[in-house]
């Protein structure tokens, strides 16, 4: 049984069926992709799994425990972290604070401890600061630690969002179009970064992307969506040659 199992999820908004019968599985350490033309329902699938939406039908299981219908917060505590298509950093906070937030749930001192500044509070503050700086260093963001998050260059902002997601200690990391808005050089660096994260942290990575080269280079397994339905599943070569996939992206060949 895979770590994250998605079974026949459907997502209906009033009359619009955004996602039908979506099934999927990902295990720890796997690098998997989700592609499809615009409006295919990729972000909807993410949102349904991470708790932003409640699936109209279907089940999601993480390590055998049902998580569909839980809130984003509960799902994050269970072990799934995500990034967003439009970067949603906490712009007014510093880079370090953005990452420290991820460690919030691991703290055990309470509110009273914070107010009276108990020794436990002080200890945990140092500990998490150390861990956060280490994480930033791993992702080569440590020199920006005191900067305001919004003043980072675009590529670094994306990396910060990934760092923040990693700080929550997830078992599965969901990346929503991480390469959006990057130039080719940055995309190459991102490819290396994603592989590095998988190797270093052992998380399963689920990727939505539009950039074919990136997806084909990174993902061991790819699912293709079109109009909410799964039209192909397989390795990069299998999916590339699948006529249905080609038709979805380029339309029917002229007769």
């Amino acid at each position: 049984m895979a770590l994250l199992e998605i079974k026949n999820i459907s997502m209906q908004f009033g009359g619009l069926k955004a996602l039908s019968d979506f099934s999927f599985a990902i295990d720890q350490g796997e690098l998997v992709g989700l592609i499809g033309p615009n409006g295919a329902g990729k972000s909807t699938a993410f949102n349904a799994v991470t708790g932003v939406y409640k699936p109209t039908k279907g089940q999601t299981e993480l390590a055998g425990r049902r998580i569909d219908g839980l809130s984003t917060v509960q799902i994050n505590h269970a072990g799934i972290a995500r990034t967003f298509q439009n970067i949603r950093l906490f712009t007014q906070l510093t880079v370090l604070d953005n990452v420290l937030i991820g460690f919030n749930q691991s703290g055990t001192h309470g509110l009273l401890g914070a107010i009276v500044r108990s020794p436990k509070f002080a200890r945990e503050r140092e500990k998490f600061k150390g861990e956060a700086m280490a994480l930033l260093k791993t992702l080569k963001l440590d020199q920006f630690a005191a900067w305001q998050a919004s003043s980072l260059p675009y590529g670094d902002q994306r990396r910060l969002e990934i760092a923040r997601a990693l700080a929550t200690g997830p078992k599965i990391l969901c990346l929503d179009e991480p390469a959006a808005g990057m130039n080719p050089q940055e995309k190459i660096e991102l490819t290396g970064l994603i592989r590095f994260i998988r190797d270093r942290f052992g998380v399963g990575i689920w990727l939505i992307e539009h950039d074919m080269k990136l997806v084909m280079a990174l993902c061991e397994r790819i699912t293709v969506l079109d109009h909410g339905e799964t039209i192909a599943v397989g390795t990069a070569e299998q999916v590339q040659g699948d006529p249905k996939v080609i038709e979805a992206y380029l339309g029917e060949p002229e007769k």
Partner: protein
Amino acid sequence: MSVAGGQLPLETPVRRHLSAPLVANWWVPLAVVLVVALAPWVEGGRGLLGMGGWDKFWAQIAIVVGINLTLAMSLQLINGIAGQFSLGHAGFMAVGAYIGGYAVPTHGGKLGAEDEMVAWVHPGGVLLYVVALGVVTVATAGVVFGLYKLVGLLGRVHKRGPAVVFGVLLAWLVVDIVTKGKSAGSNPLGAIAALGWGSAAVTGSFDWIMLRGVGAAEWVSGVTPAGYRQPACLVVSLLGGGVMAAMAGLVVGLPTLRLRGDYLAIATLGVSELIRTTITNSGPLGRATGLSVPTYSVDAEAGVSAVYFFPWVYGVAILTILVVWRIQHSPKGRALQCLREDEIAAGAVGIDVTAHKVLAFVIGAGLAGMGGALFAHYIGYINPKQFDLTKSIELVVMVTLGGLGSVPGTIVATVLLSLFQPALQTANQWMPAWAPGWATSGAELLNKYRLVIYSLLLIVAILVRSRGWLSFGRGKKA
């Protein structure tokens, strides 16, 4: 300017909007507060400018400033740090004021030698009242919540179930009231038997606790050394007011979770007004006429009370500032700021949005309740009009002009705004003897129009802080 390597020169955009703090360091707030707090002590009690120390002008201002500091700082936690726009802070203040203000005279006094009510001698009584109130409130809330869940379960059985049940009950209530008319003795709550029984149960259990606890209350008062009974009464009054206000904050925070921005603002406004209406309709609380509250004086002599009250006021103010500051600079505070920025992203990073919102409301409300109790014991006479929308707005203005999320800025803004009205009111007295006639009549005009000037300054201040000077029409601000 050369642009190297595809990277633009980095600069933090000038943030000229309401999150920019009015004051960024601690020296200014410290200085300002010290001046205000120490002014009455100057010259052995004669006060600054020789305008009278303790029983006059400066003492009153210093105390009002202290109370406002507590209130504004508690609101800063909700509005500034957590980013929830609350327009109903006066409601929490009112809860604290009325609870403390009612408990002390009614339950904290004893009949003295000449059959006269002596105040501040029975801390046990005040404690009993507050405990009874608290227990009954929690129990009632629990029952209501349980019913709510029950109705929700009904909804699982049949989707329209709860709506139908509710509609039938409502229709029954309305028909019953309409056909019976306004006959004496008809109780709208009695129209639906369950509601009538429920309200009787609530009042009944409250009375029962009060009756059973008399002995324990006497014991508590006996155990407290004689000299400490008055401070003990005050402490219970403050804490009781604070706790009840915190419960009110819970009641406000939980249902308004889903609301954002404007909607939250008007919901808090509505709750505050509802609290006020409840008070206005409550006989024991004095209805619209108001309630007389014993002031905290050691000596019955008029005017000496302020000295003894002063440390309490500033003690609570400093406690509030400390608590809010420490929360802000802790992981919980960070979480609140994330909540303020982006609720969805906060949820995605594992921050329990619900819990943190409620936390901000509960703590903010509790501190405001303490401020309200202080207010009641200082001013000696409270009525619902003092806690209306205007008061909430005054507090919002203090917090916003100081900078949303900035503790030092709020301190400065609060002090300045608290001084504003008294300054205009007594502009006459500020005038040195040699000032020409037009200056004096100008001062009178200032007094007459002081609220108008206040509103004009408010508008101009917001316009300027939002757009900066001399830049009207220049286009969008950063």
